[in-house]
């Protein structure tokens, strides 16, 4: 089952955190179309998250067309967000691991690495727009 987390210090509304976690699972292919999401009751009773928070998150995911609620049956994944095949995702993360190792060898810490990634993504986006 998905292990939902709610982080007090994120400043993000708890339901939005659950939405993000489901979307991430969809992008990474952990959840596939047809998969059943845990029920609100299961989440509340197994990881102690407010049932209204989970309900609100599922409603938002349903509005976005990512899941469908079938009364009496549960909530099911309707659409994948995976942008690639599992094989190419695995290849990309292997290359990234090598890059991260090179960045560490060059003396960057985690924050330094994230700064480079974000700055590079912004530059790439700016070039796309131009």
């Amino acid at each position: 089952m998905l292990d939902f987390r709610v982080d007090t210090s994120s400043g993000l509304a708890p339901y939005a955190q659950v939405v993000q976690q489901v979307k991430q699972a969809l992008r990474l292919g952990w959840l596939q179309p047809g998969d059943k999401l845990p029920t609100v009751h299961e989440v509340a009773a197994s990881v102690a998250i407010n049932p209204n928070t989970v309900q609100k998150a599922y409603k938002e995911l349903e509005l976005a067309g990512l899941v469908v609620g079938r009364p009496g049956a549960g909530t099911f994944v309707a659409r994948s967000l995976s942008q690639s095949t599992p094989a190419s995702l695995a290849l990309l993360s292997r290359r990234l691991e090598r890059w991260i190792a090179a960045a560490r060898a060059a003396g960057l810490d985690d924050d330094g690495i994230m700064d480079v990634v974000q700055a590079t993504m912004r530059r790439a986006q700016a070039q796309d727009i131009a």
Partner: protein
Amino acid sequence: MSTAVTTAAVETAGAGHRYGDFWALRECTLALPAGSVTAVVGPNGAGKTTLLNLLVGLLPSSEGSLKVAGEQPSTEPDFLARVGFVAQDCPLYKEFSVADLLRFGQAMNPNWDGELARDRLLAAEVPLDRRAGRLSGGQRAQVALALALAKRPQVLLLDEPLASLDPLARRDFLKTLLGSAAATGMTVVMSSHLVGDLARVCDHLVVIRDGRVRLAGELDQILSEHVLVSGAPDQTARLPGDVQVLSETHHERHTTLLVRTPRPLLNPALTTAPVDLEELVLAYLERPR
């Protein structure tokens, strides 16, 4: 929860209680929708227990009015059947075994669901033949909760249920509590001086200090309205008039403010960051009225 018209399961209008000439709680106005889980937060002596005792009918109100599960709190059996209460430190009759307590509850309550209570306690691995005085803190809390839940209350009130529990027992307690809330749709109001777990537990928040409600509302709304703003002092000094500054920290070249704002701040000279719930609650508690 997001529907505009929700019936309030707990409603107070200017409610308060006075001990002699000391007001333990004043002008308390709240509306908590049916099915919501509310945390009442504040330091010791803030008025949390007074509020809960007013809601459950243990104290008369000295001003204003209250409605819980559609009725004015009282000691009438009709009202008491609809409301569950777990008092501070989960008091239980020490000489009674857990099974005795279950039988006692059965005899005292018309809608008693003894099977539910027994199943829950077995799931929580509480030995039914043990005397209450010999239970661990976590087990005692589970028994008090199971007894309150067996009444199948519409509204469940809990006074500092987590205070004396270790992190593991706390998580087990919350699983039972929130699992039951999900299964029954009951309304939960619990007081706490711990802020750590609140974001995952509650959807409504009430912050009390010195007998006054300082902040009350839906958690999502509260989080979206509060933000940390940083910038040069001449910029932070010029916020729109409807932005309320809760706290400010001055640094050598910049100032950081915690503000409550009805809409996003668009000034590009300011950087904004989300605020940690714990920080937010502390800001309201530290603030002079």
